[in-house]
């Protein structure tokens, strides 16, 4: 048990699974599967498992994302790490092939594969074409793929084990804004289910729902509000597909106020689905949503940070509801 970063925790899970399954492969492009962590051995999948199993490809994210289901269909566990610049490239093959093959084949096709998709573009300084504000929505919308976005190193490791053991294709979003986050994470393998949201804080006045890289801001806002005497319930979505309606609805039925927060675009961001599901199931509650505006993120830090829902804005919105 050591304090570990998000990526170290994830690669620890991958390393464990690859050691236990000699057929498993990992495909990367410019981000080598290497992680270091104070007090822990360096993880380097490429040198440990060799270049037949761990391959560095050319700039062709569609190949990477297609090779992985191809390996899965051939009976091999496989994962790929798609850098944020190429986050949109694999969309069609994940949507129309990975997600549909089980159903189309009447349950005969199985793909134990994981697409790690990096979300560096949702951090400041990565403007325009380098902002990947779309990936949570597009991968949460499609059928047949489990899409998760763990926000803590602990969840990240447990969900990676679960993802690699799952017979379903998993889109594993990596909120790279959390790169530096670390916490105590067990050295042994364990699973965190791919189906459950997490209640991070219990409360009765208001439910705040966030996900991924937005969670630290949500938690900071909740701490401030709690300090002010508000009883805030905080939910970390964690799973975008299938979204855990029960946890959401149970909470909002209790608090009768929902504030849903996205760091990606407002229109049809995950928060739209959160609000819609709760509004359908809890009558007479109050619903609010804040998100990045429907504009390509500008490069200038002044514009960018102003447009982003941060802890202050989240707390402001909450105060206006209670």
């Amino acid at each position: 048990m050591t304090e570990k970063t998000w990526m170290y925790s994830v690669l620890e899970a991958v390393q464990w699974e690859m050691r236990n399954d000699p057929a498993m492969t990992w495909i990367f492009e410019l981000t080598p599967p290497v992680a270091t962590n104070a007090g822990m051995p360096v993880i380097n999948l490429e040198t440990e498992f060799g270049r037949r199993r761990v391959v560095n490809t050319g700039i062709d994210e569609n190949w990477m994302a297609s090779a992985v289901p191809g390996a899965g269909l051939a009976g091999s566990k496989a994962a790929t790490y798609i850098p944020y610049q190429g986050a949109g490239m694999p969309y069609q093959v994940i949507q129309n092939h990975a997600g549909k093959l089980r159903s189309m084949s009447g349950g005969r096709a199985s793909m134990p594969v994981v697409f790690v998709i990096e979300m560096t573009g949702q951090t400041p300084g990565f403007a325009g074409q380098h902002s990947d504000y779309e990936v949570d929505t597009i991968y949460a919308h499609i059928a047949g793929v489990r899409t998760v976005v763990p926000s803590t190193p602990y969840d990240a490791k447990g969900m990676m084990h679960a993802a690699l053991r799952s017979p379903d294709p998993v889109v594993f979003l990596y909120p790279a804004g959390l790169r530096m986050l670390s916490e105590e994470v067990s050295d042994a393998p364990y699973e965190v289910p791919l189906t459950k949201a997490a209640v991070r804080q219990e409360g009765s006045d208001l439910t705040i729902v966030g996900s991924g890289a937005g969670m630290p801001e949500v938690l900071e806002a909740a701490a401030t509000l709690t300090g002010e005497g508000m009883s805030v319930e905080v939910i970390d979505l964690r799973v975008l597909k299938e979204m855990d309606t029960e946890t959401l609805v149970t909470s909002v039925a209790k608090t009768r106020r929902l504030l849903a927060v996205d760091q990606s675009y407002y229109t049809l961001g995950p928060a739209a689905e959160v609000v819609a599901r709760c509004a359908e199931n809890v009558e007479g509650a109050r619903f609010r949503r804040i998100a990045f505006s429907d504009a390509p993120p500008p490069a200038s830090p002044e514009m960018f940070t102003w447009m982003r829902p941060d802890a202050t804005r989240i707390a402001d919105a909450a105060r206006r509801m209670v």
Partner: protein
Amino acid sequence: MEIGSEIANRPRRGGEDDGRTGLSRRGFLRVAGLAGVAAGLAGHVARADGQIGYFAMDLPDDRLAGMLRTILRIRWHERTMADRMLSDPSYRAYNHFYAGQEAVATGVCAALRNDGPFEQIDLVYSTHRPTGHALAKGVDMAKMQAEMDFRATGLNGGYAAEMHISDPSVGFIGADGMIGPGHVIATGSAFAFRARGSDQVSVVFGGDGTYATPHFHSALNNARLLDLPFIYVLENNLYHQYAHYSYSCPHTDIADAARAYGIPARVVDGQDVFQVYNAAKEAVDRARAGGGPTFIEAKTYRYYNHLGAPGAEVGKLGAFGYDPLAITSFRPEREVRAWMQRDPVDIARATLIDWGVLTAEAADAMEAEVRAEVDAAFAWAAGQPLCNPEDGLKHVFAEGEVMPRQVA
């Protein structure tokens, strides 16, 4: 001219008789067909004693005869389907007809490992025109037909229909209705084989239309870079939907495009199953030995229109005539006739008789058996139960069902 007269005497050959185009095309086909077959055989006979380049020299007679049987099974499945579309108002399946191209699927799959444990058989990725590939790979005809007719007991439980059929049990990963992606996915299987040290081979079939897709580059480039056990079989039937391939490809032989990547490539006569087999055998041997990918371009032709659907009428859109929307380019009648002169059924049959593998009588008996089998498959399929509506919520994930959302 014994062979010739044998062929001339056989009725119902050439894909488009049955009174649809009438005797004139059949007559034309009969005479011209002889020349084509004779020319083809001359070549075979000249090489019969040599060891090098001898067609299918590694195969015993029963395997050779099995190729004709496969071709006949595909052909009669196609023709029976076409008949149903034209005549049976209760028939529901649509089809992208493979008639004319049978020798390609048959020759390639004859070189593959099609049964045994899943971890040992070769995998085939097909296209939107999959029935030939499926039957050649060993998919059960009756179950496939039930699937095409949207039946609950079909190969894929009625979820797939023609453009999406699959059967992993024989390594038929399945139809991919999209042009391009399947080729790239197929290299992923080859990558997995190489990574786990297996000698399996991943084969993809593609049309000439595939050349223009961005996926063509991805599949070939990565197969070459990683030396994958991957075989790309490009069935060049000259057209992608309503356009000649020269509208989308600067090469006369698409194989030249593959050669540019340093991938060994062969152009073969796609109407001659033994020539196709030979090229496939060479490719499979190379792949199993760790020699990397091969590209095979089979020059071939489809007899019917791009797509046939129930309620078809001869000469109408989507059926068996020319398409009125086909304004950019379309298939000239003479081209269709010329290709029908070199029918893969005729060529395979005549070759086997010439080689002494079969007598004409045995070939006739085989064809009669195949027709009975096809009729039985259609009859079985038509009697299968329709799907249970609620089952649409199944098989999204490995476990459980999704929620019904069409009701509030």
